[in-house]
């Protein structure tokens, strides 16, 4: 047996009035929306009708509450319509009309802003009773009707024969004791402006004799892209920043039109503010899924005529329509970047100057964009900044460090040796270079670290000079997992260089983690350690071109030579910005102490 659901009317009203929306603010939007829709409907029978929506606020005083009347000169309602639409939750005159014009819905919901028949209930958030006085414009002798609805789900209707009321509708609200703030003049004006300023129907807020029109002269999506100053002002007003570039956005899938503005500062996706309007009515500043996540460098002001809104009308229905629209918006943003790249390099450089990371990220994500931009991207190298295109035309091999720490350690020394090493440690740089290798198979990209640098340096021509020093150094650093090498490298002022390959760095990190980790995890980490035979040796490379090293090599005092090597070892660690262990710090201190003692003894001897 088929039965019908039962509905708890009070529960439904409570749901629609108090839980559907994120804030009571939206009652202003709902009443304006109903009024604008009524005017739109009247224009169907009288195309010359202009129409105006008036929000008349009467401030309360001692013993009296503030009231708000929202009046329109729209289509109005007949008695049966009042029963059908005002008194039926979910009943909407606009839905039926929109459905009748189903073929037009995708383009323009029949010109109406609302369609769910629940908007008026939002007024129960700020008022215990809603009074609607209305007279239909469809029939010249239509009688005026008064409808009173209460939050407990009861309502009454009475006809007002002989009323001089003109065609249209007025909604009266009286402030709930705890909702007086919504009946404040400034608050009401702010909300009305936020929601209605882009509407083509005139909306006025009146308090006493003071009347303020809320609408802007021209909606952003109707502005010409040549009107740069006005668009700059609009961006500052709507999104809160002066843009460094402006371009038009058109996304036919969502019937979306408007402008995108490139931000003058970096921001992240969750902090990005946009403005979306639906048929001119403000929807939200944060519409999930409207703009691609990578496009954090733009803010948009857009109007949609086709995207489906959720019942609360504070967001957009997620689905294929929105996906297609987002793709089109993404394509428009990419197209703009490409346009700038080809036609306006100054602006492009300005955009890159601020959003370098984001645009590199986009290049990684979008293959076509990558192909267009890779040659023009600049990279930091040990021999200065260079564009990728410039480099690849003249070289067959590209050396790149994988971490910024590795780059810092070797860049000065690589530069002195005339070796160009790319800093792959910056965000996205190594990934871009790897991708570039796919595009340019003729170019070999090789990971480079401080161990590789040592391989480039020659051995000294007089190795015998350093024989004793090498033996002392090996003995001094025994047990530290570090080999000794003697090489000649520039600058000569650097006496020693500590070369640690990436695998060895990972090994050091494993060791550090093991000092924190517990039993089972230590076994896992031990098992993950690179096999010793696969590790490139960690080396202290002494500089045979350094005067200091030659001087140490000439010491006949083995203890003094040993101390000097220990100090050089720690110095090399420090200049490579390696974190010192307690043992290494102790080695430095004791070494310095011994050197100073030796100096004092020597001076004392000289004095005698």
């Amino acid at each position: 047996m088929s039965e019908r659901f039962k509905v708890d009317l009070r529960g439904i009203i409570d749901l629609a009035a108090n839980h559907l929306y994120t804030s009571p603010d939206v009652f202003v939007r709902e009443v304006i929306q109903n009024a604008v829709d009524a005017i739109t409907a009247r224009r169907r029978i009288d195309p010359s009708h202009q129409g105006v929506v008036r929000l008349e606020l009467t401030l309360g005083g001692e013993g009296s509450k503030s009231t708000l009347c929202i009046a329109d000169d729209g289509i109005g309602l007949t008695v049966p319509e009042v029963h059908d639409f005002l008194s039926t939750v979910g009943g909407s005159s606009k839905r039926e009309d929109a459905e009748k014009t189903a073929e037009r819905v995708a383009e323009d919901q029949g010109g109406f802003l609302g369609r769910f028949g629940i908007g008026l209930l939002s007024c129960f958030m700020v008022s215990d009773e809603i009074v609607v006085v209305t007279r239909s414009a469809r029939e010249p002798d239509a009688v005026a009707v008064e409808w009173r609805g209460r939050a407990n789900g009861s309502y009454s209707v009475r006809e007002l024969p002989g009323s001089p009321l003109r065609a249209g509708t007025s909604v009266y609200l009286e402030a709930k004791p705890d909702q007086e703030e919504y009946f404040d003049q400034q608050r009401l004006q702010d909300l009305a402006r936020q929601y209605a300023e882009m509407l083509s129907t005139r909306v006025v807020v009146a308090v006493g004799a003071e009347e303020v029109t809320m609408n802007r002269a021209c909606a952003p999506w109707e502005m010409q892209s040549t009107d740069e100053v006005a668009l700059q002002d609009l961006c500052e007003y709507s999104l809160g920043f002066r843009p460094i570039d402006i371009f038009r956005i058109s996304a036919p899938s969502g019937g979306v039109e408007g402008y995108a503005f490139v931000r003058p500062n970096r921001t992240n996706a969750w902090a990005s503010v946009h403005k979306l309007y639906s048929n001119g009515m403000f929807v939200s500043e944060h519409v999930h899924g409207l703009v691609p996540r990578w496009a954090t460098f733009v803010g948009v002001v857009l109007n949609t005529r086709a995207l489906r809104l959720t019942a609360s009308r504070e967001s957009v229905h997620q689905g294929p329509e929105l996906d297609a629209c987002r793709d089109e918006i993404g394509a428009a943003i990419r197209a703009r970047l490409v346009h700038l790249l080809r036609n306006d390099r100054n602006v492009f450089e300005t955009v890159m100057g601020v959003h370098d990371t984001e645009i590199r990220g986009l290049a990684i994500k979008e293959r076509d964009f990558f192909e267009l931009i890779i040659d023009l991207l600049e990279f930091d190298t040990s021999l200065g900044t260079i564009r990728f295109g410039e480099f690849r035309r003249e070289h067959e091999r590209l050396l790149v460090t994988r971490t910024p720490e590795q780059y810092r350690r070797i860049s000065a020394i690589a530069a002195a040796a005339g070796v160009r090493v790319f800093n792959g440690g910056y965000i996205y740089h190594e990934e871009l270079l790897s991708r570039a290798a796919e595009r340019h198979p003729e170019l070999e990209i090789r990971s480079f670290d401080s161990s590789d640098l040592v391989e480039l340096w020659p051995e000294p021509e007089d190795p015998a000079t350093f024989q004793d020093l090498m033996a002392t150094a090996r003995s001094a650093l025994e047990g530290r997992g570090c080999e000794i090498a003697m090489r000649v490298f520039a600058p000569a002022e650097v006496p020693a260089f500590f070369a640690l390959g990436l695998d060895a760095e990972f090994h050091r990190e494993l060791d550090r983690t093991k000092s924190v980790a517990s039993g089972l995890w230590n076994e896992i980490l031990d098992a993950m350690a690179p096999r010793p035979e696969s590790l490139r040796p960690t080396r202290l490379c002494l500089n045979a071109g350094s005067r200091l090293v030659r001087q140490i090599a000439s010491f006949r005092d083995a203890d003094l030579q040993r101390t000097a090597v220990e100090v050089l070892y720690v110095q090399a660690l420090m200049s490579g910005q390696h974190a010192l262990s307690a043992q290494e710090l102790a080695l430095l201190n004791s070494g310095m102490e011994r050197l100073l003692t030796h100096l004092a003894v020597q001076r004392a001897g000289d004095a005698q």
Partner: protein
Amino acid sequence: MSARLVDPSVQAMLDEARMLPDCAARDALLHRAASAAETFGDLDTAWSARCRILESTSSHSAPRFETLFLCLAWCFGVSDAEPDRFPASSLLWQYKWVTTAAPEYASIPRPVLERIVDDLDDRFVKNGWGRRAGFHKRMELWSSFGEHQRALELMPQWRSTPRDRGSDCNACEISYTSWLLVNLGQDEEALREARPITRGRLSCAAVPHSTFGWLLLPLVRLGRFDEAESLYERGRRLVASLDDGACTLIVPYLFHAAFMGHVEHALTMLRIHMPHAVSLKSDWDRTNWFGRIGVAVEFLHQSGIETLDLPRIGGLVEESEVGTLALAHRCLAIARKHAEALDQRNGNHYNVNRLASLAQLYPNAKRKNGEHRT
């Protein structure tokens, strides 16, 4: 609660990371911030930065599992020492990923792997989570040793254990079951099991990208070529759209493309993913990648393709134009080395046998080659 003072250089890295989407660069930055915070003795910041890495989906993609291991080891270390300050519950979900990845490294001994699953099971129960994930991970572990029948025998216990917040999602569980059945040669059953996924009714972050790939083989073995082609197209596109992890997931599609005559597709996939494949770390991934690619390239050679234009990759592709036979041999040698390492650890010949049987996986390939060439 008072605000924590964070060193400005660490804060700058954390701020920068906040600007970035979920990606390898973000993880690397967070890792640097965590290490630096630790140097300053700021354990709270080091913990929260590492937790952010653990939460990031990109850290779970194959080349970066080592970061995940290091992070989790550190986090469990401080959590075990101060459980109230650093609650273990925020690490348990990620522990499952590590448990799945650990057997892929031949250097981790078998008894340690068994103890990881025991430890996961214990920690889940201690934190009020259920045992379903423990059973699942144990089955995965045994499957990774090639002991599929043993894993299958645990299935009734797994399935009868109630789902809880630690369980994998339905899509992942069904996907794993279908993989197990494929490995047991139960092709029809595997396809039936995966039907909610192939029909688009079940999906998640990992499914169906991976599932479609391993379902190609049973479809081809059963001669259901049209269905295989349809899954191939759908899966290949899904994997291509991934930001991370595409390199390991693409292998079955690349293999299928080479054998089923989509030569241009195969070559494009090879050019795109080969440079990333050389940085794969796990023995399992390297066995799979280089084994399948070696056999696929060998097949291309037999089909008359003698050279390929590929990016130069040290030790693998020294010149931009490489001979297919030489490349196939190099790839197979790499794969064999890792397969042997895994087998030595596992105490069987599962991976070496698997490699040896790759060339026979597509017995109908030559016949279909002409029909499908694009």
